[in-house]
């Protein structure tokens, strides 16, 4: 899967799970604030990630994820590692 396809897939499940317009998901936007995530929403986020991509998420993975771009990069990198 190409990076663009992964980003499209991420935006699609984020829009569905968190009921947010796709045009608000800008690469530099703050993920937590834009999606209005609380601690339980992060659990939902992990569920959708693990349902859509072949890797397991660790709690510490979220430390460096601030923007949507950080999140895209994380998913892309983690997916590629899993395939190696």
């Amino acid at each position, binding site marked *: 899967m190409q990076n663009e396809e992964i980003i499209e897939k991420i935006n699609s499940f984020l829009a569905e799970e968190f009921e947010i317009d796709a045009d608000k998901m800008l690469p530099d936007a703050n993920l937590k604030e834009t999606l209005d995530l609380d601690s*339980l929403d992060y*659990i939902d986020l*992990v*569920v959708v990630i*693990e349902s859509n991509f072949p890797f397991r*998420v660790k*709690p510490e993975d979220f430390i460096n994820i601030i923007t949507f771009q950080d999140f895209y990069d994380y998913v892309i990198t983690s997916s590629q590692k899993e395939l190696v």
Partner: protein
Amino acid sequence: MLILQNDITSIIPQRPPFVMIDQLVSCDEVCSVTSFYVKEENVLVDNGELSEAGITENIAQTAAAGLGYVTLKNNAPVVVGYIAAIKNLEVFVLPKVGDVIETNVTITNQIFDVTIITGIVKCSGILLAKCEMKIYLKK
């Protein structure tokens, strides 16, 4: 039948009058099934029907019973669980006094310290209610 009514409090933390399950019918690492006879004097019965709060408590206690049974069986340390969230609760029919409900809980996911379960409540094969719960396990 794995655990009968008299012993049910050995695997759940709740105590009368707030016990909303009678028997643990079956249980494994993923699924647990309980039965519960709805009595008139139940604290969560209102106008002859078990309330929505009673149903959600019944589902939560079924999850607790499953976990408690497995913990006891494996001689593992006791873990306390808290309902963190209830999602997609749908109540189709409230069980009436005199009904015996059967509740099936399945663990669908384990994320960090949170266990996600789905609960289904039936009476005589008819679906009464279902929901998803997030249960925080304090280890």
